[in-house]
């Protein structure tokens, strides 16, 4: 067994602390994680090892508001390799003022039920 163990270094992106994580794995099986200062770090290491995902925040065009862009986020992390593709899909949205923070502008991004595009601020009509 000993020969099959490998290590991998990651940086936890769970919060601004940025704990350096050491992952020990045997092939595709994660054995243990060191270096995390809180539980989110251990969870992050597991997720990153198995299915890396990233939070995504961007903007969409808004009509009838004070600003030209409305900030939005995806309600859950998207697959790391599809972040740019997700951004392109979201940029096709055109919102209309007024908008309230939390308004859902698109559901089922990439056909994933829990990937919703939501407004991250309110904007009144001007």
């Amino acid at each position: 067994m000993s020969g099959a163990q490998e290590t991998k270094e990651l940086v936890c992106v769970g919060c601004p602390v940025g704990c350096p994580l050491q992952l020990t794995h045997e092939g595709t099986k994660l054995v243990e994680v060191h270096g995390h200062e809180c539980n989110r770090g251990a969870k992050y290491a597991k997720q990153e090892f198995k299915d890396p995902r990233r939070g995504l925040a961007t903007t969409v065009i808004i009509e009838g508001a004070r600003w030209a862009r409305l900030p939005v986020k995806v309600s859950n992390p998207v697959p790391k390799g599809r972040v740019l593709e997700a951004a392109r899909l979201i940029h096709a949205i055109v919102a209309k003022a007024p908008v309230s923070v939390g308004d859902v502008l698109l559901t089922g991004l990439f056909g994933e039920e829990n990937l919703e595009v939501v407004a991250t601020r309110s904007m009144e009509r001007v």
Partner: protein
Amino acid sequence: MLGRAFGTYDVVVIGGGPAGMAAALGARDAGSERVLILDREPEVGGILQQCIHAGFGLHYFDQELTGPEYAERFFTRVVDQDVDVQVDSYVSGVAVDSSGEKRVRVMSAEHGLVTVPTRSVVLAMGCRERTRGQIRIPGTRPAGVLTAGLAQKMVNMLGVLPGKRVAILGSGDIGLIMARRLTLEGCEVVGVFELMPHSNGLTRNVVQCLDDFGIPLHLSTTVTRIHGSDRVNAITVAPVDAQLTPDHSQARDVACDTLLLSIGLIPENELSQSLGIHIDEVNTGGPWVSSTLETSMPGMFACGNVLHVHDLADFVTREALLAGQFAAEHAAGVRRPKDDIQLVPGDNVRYCMPHSLSTEREHTIYLRCKEPMRPAWLSVGGDLLTKRLQFVVPAEMIMLKIKPDVLERFHGDTLRIDLHAEKGGAA
């Protein structure tokens, strides 16, 4: 709202970013009846409105929010708490009469020039970005050279891209976040160039903003020349030695149409200086403050980025709630005993905040290191209080609580804070 202003306010807060909003809430909470926030922008929220990425609120709300979400939560509270808010209002000065009453001079399109009487003032004007002029990059002066924060506002609020092929000087968080942001918007980010041998941003931002997108980070490298007549068409970059002097023999040109500068922030001091407030030029670049966050002008308090540049809005909020509370106390006529301990930065400490302490209560102090260290031993007053930190980097502020019993020994003295690589060791 200024129509009501002919009565005297308890607290007037200048600036409506996270610092200003929390200061106003802190003042209301501590009993001030009449509190006013003034901001020159058309809405409150400050810099948070353009920081559309997540990374706010983990300490304060135990939840990761984007900048606008964080701002909106506080704005809702500000409205609930009957704080007066006046936007599109630029504060150009504060006059203080012999009784200590202050008159805040405000300019707005709606009301013209008005003076607002108040007992206390909280300075919460945020910070400014350093520009090309401050680091004197040689070359032509074409369009396409701008600060990263300005680009952030253009992209995220105005919907205007600064260019197509972008180079970024400075690896602070704003530079890193803009590298990702512009990539998401379809720009090509050709590289981030950093003078120092380490990134000035949070590690998580290097990972998420550069590594994820394959954007190269060139450490110990700087921009030595800007080329182009109407528009930037290239920059020259060169590695630097340990003294940060560029080695021109290894210089190379990088084609780009835009250069973003993310080369540091400085407290917005214009107003504070015009009021004759004592500025800590050497360490923080912001006003000198006591443990009640009071500046050298009695009844004028400071918090947030105008005081020292913060990396976390959550810490801004915490500091500003206190400033608001002390401003409310002052307005109510409470006078605390003067601080009698000077807090001074020692080895590997760029600054510590506040500048003085009292023995009457526990204090939260903030400090920033000069060089990264892993691990680091923090010592307060020699070996009176030592604490092991896993690692310290300049991008992350360190927070520390000091109890009155430690402070008792330093009456009338200076208390020095050091960061050493070994316990009890020298730098």
